[in-house]
């Protein structure tokens, strides 16, 4: 168990950490999030004993780290560094064997050493390239080797400094899954993770640092709120729920530029929210709705002051909401159908039919979204034919080109 109690750290004349406290019980993965310069690395270096705190204390399994020798400390805390230099030509097996350093004496031998190294190589699937030079590996392979080294160190606590900073999404996920396995086997793990979504997905709890202080801690969903992100990262963002993992997803927004053309977004949910956020970020004047109260999209639109029509949940679209949304569609230069769900009443399709230039964004297949019947489906397909389809990522660009191409699209209002 790692216990950090009211730790202050200054480097030179600069105060880096102020009254930081946190606990990582065995079998738990605590993620450290926060902007650059928040003191994450300093905190990790204090936990692994590289820095002695000016005040407060760090305990690992009950022992004060600043009382321990480097050797004794490294038997308690293993560290996976941020992407380490690749200049040296040690083999993978050599690097993993370096994890045994705290267990070997200068002249004696380390009896369990070879076994521990073997186990670590197996566990991280790095045994197959054990004789390759570390400098010839890809970033993802190399990071697994450093996790293997930490495993060979056989310490009850593990500290990770941005272990996935230079990895692609696949290797980042593999590395963190591996760390997750170590957590399940009873290690206490504290890791600085810059990717907020990954942190939310893999960590049991998060601690958010800003300016050397803990500003939030707890379950990922409680820590990653738009407000907390706004204060600590100084960034406008939208937090929605990832439909696949069920964990929070953070979408940073850039400041709105010059508002030029107006766009109305029909359809809600994650995709609707993402479309609103992206179009807003691209500088469009965005309106949205109607969506049921509690829809994912409202989280975004409230934050960004995007005018949005709402209807009570589970109720049919009534006349006034339809009329209000219809006005907005009339005013809009472009209407986006965001992964529209087909309902038996067909209200959204009536509105969509009112629209002039139309862009269709589809993330799910039509079958998944079809809760109506053949007639509605046929209407939707006709709409889709005369609209421009777009992926979620390039929706802003598509809207802009559709809008510029105005001449080729004739308003079919009233079909």
């Amino acid at each position, binding site marked *: 168990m790692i216990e950090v109690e009211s730790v202050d750290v200054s480097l030179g004349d600069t105060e880096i950490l102020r009254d930081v406290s946190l606990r990582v019980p065995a079998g738990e993965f605590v993620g450290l999030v926060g902007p650059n310069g928040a003191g994450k690395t300093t905190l990790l*270096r204090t936990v692994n004993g590289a820095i002695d705190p000016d005040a407060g204390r760090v305990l690992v399994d009950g022992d004060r780290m600043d009382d321990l020798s*480097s050797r*004794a400390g*490294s038997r308690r805390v293993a560290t996976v560094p941020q992407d*380490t230099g690749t200049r*040296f030509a040690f083999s993978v097996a050599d690097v993993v064997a370096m994890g045994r350093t705290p267990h070997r004496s200068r002249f004696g031998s380390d009896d369990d050493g070879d076994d521990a190294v073997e186990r670590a190589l197996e566990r991280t699937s790095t045994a197959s390239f054990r004789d390759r030079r570390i400098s010839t590996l890809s970033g993802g392979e190399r990071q697994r080797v450093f996790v293997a080294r930490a495993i060979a160190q056989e310490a009850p606590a593990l500290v990770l400094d941005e272990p996935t900073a230079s990895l692609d999404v696949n290797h980042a996920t593999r590395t963190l899954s591996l760390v997750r396995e170590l957590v399940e086997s009873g290690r206490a793990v504290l890791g600085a993770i810059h990717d907020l979504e990954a942190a939310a997905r893999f960590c049991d709890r998060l601690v958010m640092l800003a300016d050397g202080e803990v500003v939030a801690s707890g379950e990922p969903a409680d820590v990653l709120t738009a407000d907390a992100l706004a204060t600590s990262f100084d960034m406008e963002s939208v937090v929605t729920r990832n439909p696949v993992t069920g964990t929070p997803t953070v979408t940073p927004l850039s400041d709105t530029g010059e508002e030029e053309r107006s766009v109305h977004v029909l359809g809600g949910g994650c995709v609707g929210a993402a479309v609103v956020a992206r179009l807003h970020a691209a500088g469009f004047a965005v309106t949205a709705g109607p969506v049921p109260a509690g829809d994912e999209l409202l989280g975004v639109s409230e934050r960004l002051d995007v005018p949005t029509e709402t209807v009570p949940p589970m109720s049919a679209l009534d006349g006034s909401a339809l009329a209000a949304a219809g006005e907005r569609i009339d005013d809009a230069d472009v209407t986006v159908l965001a992964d529209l769900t087909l309902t038996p009443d067909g209200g959204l399709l009536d509105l969509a039919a009112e629209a002039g230039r139309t862009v269709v964004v589809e993330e799910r297949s039509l079958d998944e979204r079809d809760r109506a019947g053949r007639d509605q489906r046929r209407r939707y397909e006709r709409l889709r034919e005369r609209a421009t389809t777009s992926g979620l990522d390039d929706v802003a660009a598509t809207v802009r080109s559709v809008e510029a191409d105005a001449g080729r699209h004739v308003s079919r209002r009233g079909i």
Partner: protein
Amino acid sequence: MSSRHWLVLSLLSAILLATVLTSATIGPVSIDLPTVAKAATNAVGVPVGLALESEHTGLFGVEFSLPVPSAEYRYPFAFDVPETSETIVRQIRLPRIVLGAVVGFALAAAGTVMQGFFRNPLADPSIIGVSSGAAVGAVAAIVFTVALPLPVMAFAGALLAAFGVYAIATQNGETPVATLLLAGVAVQTFLGAVISYMLVQSGESLREAVFWLMGHLHNSTWAEVEATLPVAVLAVGVLYAYAHDLNVLLMGEADAHALGIEVERTKRILLALASVVTAAAVAVTGVIGFVGLVVPHVMRLLVGPDHRILLPTSALAGASFLVAADTLARSGAVEVPVGIVTAAIGAPFFLYLLRRREVHTV
């Protein structure tokens, strides 16, 4: 250590022995290999006792006696060898060859440690001012009338310079490697100025001073071997015990600390030992360049970066290299300082490796 490592070490030891014996056959008088081998075996002495003898010396006009350790040897072998040959081999050639081997051993080992320590392929044994310090001491001993013998002056100068660089670069108990490197360069430059000034003032003794600066093994004696060999072997032995720590330090200091290395203490020990090894070598032979730079690079290509094998192999290869270079230096019509030969052979070879992109890192 794997069996492959033992094989490499045995091979290099055999090469060293062969180089030493072959070198002893070469000279103005040609002596055949069997005779050399017998004479050399006769010269193998086993130290059986250590006595303190007092030696009279004077410093700054004050006369005093220094206790000097002196070993007693027993010579277990007595092959029948013609007396002239035995004298030439044992009294003239072997001291020089063995001293060359010891100095090459020391310089290559120190160079290996410094390159690893500084994580810098340009590092050599004199990187923190050891050679410049030795040169100041030696040139002062040559140019001015100083009571202390030249090697003592050189040894003291070397250690003073290294300690000075270390002290300048250390702040709050930490010695950043980059600061150490820069301090070393600055101190070397400063000491270079001191040497140049002394050379300008030297007058008659200029030739002797320049000869020393070039590095030579001329007129070597068993006494020099006795003074250098124990220091070099002992210090390299301790360095070998730190070979694993040096490996871990290569990963970076933060990483090394996380793996349980007491970084600052280990750095101090490595620096002190490497400086003593270098000082012991340059104090008796002057500044012999390139051995400590080239040999570790070549061995790294052959055996890899693991200091547990790199350090002993570099040391053995350095010994062979310097013996061979010195044989060349003394076998021409006019003897040249060995420093010229090592640089003249070493530099082009190093450039060849560079062009082949084989040497680019530690």
